[in-house]
């Protein structure tokens, strides 16, 4: 790394991984310094998008609130989630893990 200097042992290990990391196809041979972060909900295990055989959501393994959470975090799809850029930046502050903490997501009124 040119701009960051690894100081402790963990940073040195991360640097070692970064130097030998796999790169995405579009980066071409030799990799490059660009990011290769998987984008979008198709990369995320998220059964919350499904409906059950009757078209309902109540019996699914994850609560329907999980859908909202996914829209807010990982997707461009316009959904009814609070405006986290302007009015409600902290609405999920108490929700570290959607599966466990979805009950703690704040209610936000416009």
């Amino acid at each position: 790394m040119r701009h960051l200097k690894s100081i402790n042992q963990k940073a040195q290990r991360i640097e070692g991984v970064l130097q030998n990391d796999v790169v995405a196809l579009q980066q071409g041979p030799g990799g490059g310094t660009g990011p290769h972060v998987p984008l979008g909900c198709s990369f995320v295990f998220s059964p919350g998008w499904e409906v059950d055989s009757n078209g309902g959501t109540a019996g699914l393994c994850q609560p329907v609130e999980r859908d909202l959470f996914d829209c807010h975090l990982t997707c461009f799809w316009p959904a009814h989630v609070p405006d986290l850029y302007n009015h409600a930046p902290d609405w999920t502050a108490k929700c570290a893990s959607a599966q466990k903490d979805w009950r703690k997501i704040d209610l936000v009124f416009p």
Partner: protein
Amino acid sequence: MMLRRGEYHTFSGADARYLYLVPSAAVVELDDVSHAVLETLAGGDRTANDLAESLSSRWSGDEIRSSIGELLGVRAIQSVAAPPVTPPTVKAKRSIPLQTLVLNVTSKCNLSCGYCYEYGEDRIVESTTKPRFMDEATAKQSVDFMFAEAGDSPSVNLTFFGGETLLNFKMLKSALAYAKQRGAELGKQVHASLTTNATLLREEIVDWFIENDVGVTVSIDGAREQQDKFRVFSNGMGSYDIILPRIKDLLARHKRRPVGARVTLTGQNLDVVSIYRHLFEEIGFWEVGFAPVTTSWQRDYAIEDEGFRQLLAGFQTLAAEYLEVSLAGRRHGFSNVRDTLEEIHKGMSKSHPCGAGFGLLGVATDGDVALCHRFAGSDSHKLGSVFNGVDHAAQATFLETHHIDNKTDCSTCWARPLCAGGCYHEAHTRYGTTTQPNLHYCEWIRAWTNTCLEVYGTLAAKRPDFLEHL
């Protein structure tokens, strides 16, 4: 691509700027470009092009983009659209090799320290149904248990704790002799250590320490006035004058292993600088470690907000002194800072606050096994017994329920890689449950961790060779 800042804590040392990355616990030094990129992102999310443009008067686009690439690599910044990065939860292996076994050799003590969790109002040990002393058969069984649970580890640590350990000196001798004999047969090294209040030290005992390389920690709260506030005999008489000559004799003769002092801080005893001066400089302990008393908040010896501030100021004074002395190439004995520096240097990111229930277990006087010595003897925290082995199902459940991922309050704290919610026993005493993070000292932990990071950063800039010896 829209970028946002990732999770990190900034700090400086000498003239260098650093990031402490969370949750990886990596420490990196920033150059001017990277610092400017992060400063700009602190004002709000930006695209990479936007960032390059706003900083174009100072650096070329390529320079800025390569800095962004590195910051993304270490996750100091992230794509807004990227899913939150959840570190994989490492499941505990079925069998975790035991490294340290703490034997509570007696629950009796010849002192009556007012704040003691073993006897005081906050006690959890079932003292009425358990034997007061561990017998030799149970101790031997514990040693066999230790080797059986240690798996392939080439060495094991056997620690004696109490009550006052030296009240059961006869058993200590036979237990350690047996452990050394079994260790030799099995090709494993045995390291022994103990904690004592020093009241019962005598020549024969110090000889035994020397012959067996026993590491000794003395519980002592400072000079006479500080020591005699709480560390008294049952008739109220202070213990300082009894222990001082014994400690001096111990320090003069036992040179095989460093002898440390362990200080319990209370609302009435918070002057860590003067305590340190007395124990390190005047008495001559190798190192001095401090811990706030474990207590529920109602007790009058509990440390409250103002006390924590005073404590922090004292710790910071000693940390600054530690830095100065270390830069000069000498040794300072403030062990709290040294221990934290070591964890920072390794980049420890803890799934659990300590090794209790993993590589460390405590044994009660009757052979019941618990998380650590503080829970040994509490039936509700039992994890098996030395006679029947570790209850692996209970152990796995404990480790799963106490994983940092289950502590929602900690999920936004930058100090969680080092703290991980803090001591289980402290939480149990304060909140009645081991699963609760110790929210009463969060601010203290963050301030203290920041101080240690600054000491670390300064050493990294001025004496990188020092870090190699951590």
